[in-house]
């Protein structure tokens, strides 16, 4: 069977879902395909979760323009419309000796060219008032109050849900195997059947070069650059108030120390170019580099209180160090949205805005819908509620009175909501990304079996079919005695 669509977006990361959501404002057939079992499982899943202010992005590059615009759109639209956790905590770039101050001034100038508001250089006491745990060697910092942090999982899921609400279709576990250019349309072959699309938008993250090659575009290469992280328990006695950067070097912005939207401390990322586009493993070297780097900023940090290590891949186009967002001049009806590394998350609303502009040129005469609904409601968060709010919530549905995850105080009601969303969770990790059971200090040791049970009941599948993430990541292999019984029967 072949599906037909006007616009096909390949990739369910923050970029792909944002484009889908922005295009769903128009009278247009939109399909988004994602090879994973969920949206937000690639680069969007594992990063520093920052809405950069935009002082760092080179003002001569696309990044420089889109970062600041993205930040503004997060502030003025996204936060209000999608109820996504965003906190405008501000960022500091810290110099630890006088020699670093000219470099801070250069960054300040670059920021001004990018039109980042309210930048200033802070020194002395003021610096330690802003950030009391900072290394005592610190002499000055560039302070950017417009920097923020965001929950990238909730953002991406909200975008996908909102796109679906407005008529887009999201197909998961659809991996593109080939694309044939048929002139008027592209025939996109996937593991879930063929799709004919007038316009294809390639937002495939680290695989964007592979997808482009399928239509003969070979002029860019994505070099995955792995970054490793440590995440700490919320109750860690060391707190920071801002996203703290070190003075950047040529390869990376250095090790960042930042709170997350849930007030965990996050440190990372390391930077290591690798070949394998799926290798999200942690390495001793990478992790050691992260803690050593973070200690330069906050000397009291150790690995005590760490509850999680993870790694992400930056989808970098090394040769340009910039985003590549354009309608291909070689293949009509094919738009690349590639090389979206940092500040990709921060720029994502502006990237989507830019892509809509390109689509309008490719498909002239696009009309806006009258009934586009830009709003999404977040799943209730028991953990952040007052006793009174909790009471009301439980009166409405007693499932919100049943705590499943003790570390994070996550209720059964929240987990059911995560499964029952338009783009609902189908795996243990997908539930964790949406509503956090297992994201705490026991890492699912206690709630894991309960989440498996709820998934099995809700999806109507045996527990042995419940997956952690991908297809072969089943958690339980068989019932006890199953193969022992089989042996007995076989012998008889």
């Amino acid at each position, binding site marked *: 069977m072949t599906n037909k669509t006007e616009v096909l977006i390949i990739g369910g990361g923050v970029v792909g879902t944002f484009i889908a959501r922005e295009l769903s404002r128009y009278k247009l057939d939109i399909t988004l395909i994602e090879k994973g079992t969920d949206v937000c499982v690639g680069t969007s899943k594992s990063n520093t979760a920052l809405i950069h202010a935009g002082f760092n992005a080179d003002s001569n590059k696309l990044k420089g323009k889109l970062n600041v615009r993205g930040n503004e759109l997060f502030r003025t639209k996204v936060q209000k419309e999608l109820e996504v956790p965003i906190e405008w905590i501000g960022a500091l770039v810290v110099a630890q000796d006088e020699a670093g101050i000219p470099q801070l001034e250069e960054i300040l100038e670059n920021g001004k060219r990018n039109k980042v508001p309210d930048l200033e250089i802070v020194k002395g006491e003021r610096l330690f008032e802003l950030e009391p745990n900072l290394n005592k060697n610190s002499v000055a910092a560039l302070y950017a109050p417009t920097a923020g942090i965001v929950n990238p999982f909730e953002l991406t899921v909200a975008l996908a849900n909102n796109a679906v609400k407005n008529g887009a279709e999201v197909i998961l576990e659809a991996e593109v195997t080939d694309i044939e250019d048929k002139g008027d349309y592209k025939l996109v072959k996937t593991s879930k059947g063929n799709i004919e699309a007038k316009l294809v938008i390639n937002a495939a993250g680290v695989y964007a070069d592979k997808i482009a090659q399928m239509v003969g575009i070979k002029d860019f290469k994505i070099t995955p650059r792995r970054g490793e992280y440590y995440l700490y328990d919320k*109750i860690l006695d060391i707190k920071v108030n801002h996203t703290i950067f070190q003075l950047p070097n040529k390869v990376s912005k250095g090790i960042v120390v930042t709170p997350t939207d849930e007030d965990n401390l996050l440190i990372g990322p390391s930077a290591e170019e690798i070949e394998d586009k*799926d*290798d*999200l*493993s*942690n*390495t*001793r070297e*990478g*992790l050691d580099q992260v803690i050593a780097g973070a200690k330069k900023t906050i000397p009291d940090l150790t*690995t005590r209180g*760490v*509850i*999680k*290590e*993870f790694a992400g891949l930056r989808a970098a186009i090394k040769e340009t160090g910039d985003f590549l967002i354009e309608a291909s001049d070689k293949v009509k009806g094919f738009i690349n949205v590639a090389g979206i590394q940092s500040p990709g998350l921060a720029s994502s609303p502006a990237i989507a805005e830019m892509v809509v502009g390109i689509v309008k040129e490719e498909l002239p005469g696009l009309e806006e819908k009258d009934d586009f609904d830009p709003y999404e409601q977040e799943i209730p968060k028991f953990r952040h509620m007052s*006793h*009174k709010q*909790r*009471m009301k919530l*439980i*009166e409405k549905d*007693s*499932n*919100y*009175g*049943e*705590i499943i995850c*003790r*570390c994070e*105080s996550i209720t*059964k009601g929240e987990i059911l909501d995560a499964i029952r969303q338009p783009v609902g969770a189908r795996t243990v990790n997908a539930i964790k990304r949406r509503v956090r059971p297992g994201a705490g*200090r*026991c*890492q*699912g*040791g*206690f709630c*894991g*079996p309960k989440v498996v*049970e709820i998934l099995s009941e809700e999806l109507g599948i045996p*527990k*042995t079919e419940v*997956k*952690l*993430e991908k*297809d*072969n*990541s*089943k*958690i*339980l*292999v*068989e*019932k*006890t*005695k*199953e*193969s*022992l019984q089989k042996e007995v029967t076989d012998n008889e």
Partner: protein
Amino acid sequence: MNKQSYDLVVVGGGPAGLAAAQEAYDQGVRDILIMERDFELGGILQQCIHNGFGLHFFGEELTGPEYAQRFMEKVAERGIDIKLDTMVLEVTPDKKVYAVNSKEGMLEIDAKAVVMAMGCRERTREAIGIPGSRVAGVFSAGTAQRYINMEGYMPGKKVVILGSGDIGLIMARRMHLEGAEVEAVLELLPFSGGLTRNIVQCLDDFDIPLRLSQTVTRIHGKERLEGVSVAKVDKNLKPIPGSEYYIECDTLLLSVGLIPENELSVAAGIELASVTGGPIVNECRETNINGIFACGNVLHVHDLVDYVTEESKLAGKAAALYLQDKIVKRDKEINIIAGDNIGYIVPHKITEKIEERKRVDLYMRGKRPMENAQILVMDGDKKLFAKKERFVKPAEMISIPLPEKMIEQLEGSTVEVKIVEGGE
């Protein structure tokens, strides 16, 4: 908000909470509530279907559920109130207990005394930072035990176990008996963290190898676990380059330590001891907050449930005396000091005068194994007494009775205990 009040609220219905509630009742307290987050009482004992429980306390071998059942019956006979499926969210320093369940909604319970008995949790792969991929098939040993014993599912078929704590040893045998291949039990330290009887009965009897001074250095696999890299470690517990080898497996179980679950205690303002991770308590198991007691694995991790019961009865009795206003402070507070080769001692101090008390038992763990040792109990520089100990093992708790008379006659304000060579 659903408001209620009780004389005594016990947070946790595992072995510690049950024994504390029962003892408080037997000492005259009638208005008691046990709050349990699970659907049944008994705590982690319910998934410990092996035997070996109760040898000290009952003088017979019971399974975990049997041991739990005895106390559940005692609690039922006494008509003690119980709330199941109820999660305590907060205990305030003035002993208001906030909790939630799906039947009653939000609860605010005014308590005159509180016993904290929340137990412990397992250290995770993430907490010890094993590098590699984050795949399915890596479980803490207790979680695997729950899947097999409570839910009837196998988490895997070819198993490596890291850590030779008791749960790891028990699970090695359990998985073997369920038809899985247990490749090895690896232990970072040069000695096991489990009871000797468990090493014999769970590993030796089934030819499961215990490899000391080895650890997992990397987890392999893309989606489900495919194998682990293992290396020998040096004296500083660092992997020795070149000693690495690979074991193919689909399951890695971790038994790498237990951590008292004291998030509620910290929020209540209870001071914790850094070594145990549990509250600092006096001999009544009372915390720094008057009327809030702690017992069981929330206080320090025990090797035998029998000791949990003994300790919890002390806490239950003390809670009763507190409620009856029968606790009298001593003139002099005595600090208990963990000396040479002692990891920690509970209680941390002796502060109360209690009628008819004959002795105070000190519970302690050795830091490193020692043979022919002697345990010295010191009043300042003066030796009070010595006790010979043939084997000292960190895995096995030692208890030393301190007679009340001796406490009365102490010259200084400290009692130091140390373990030294030369027990003969």
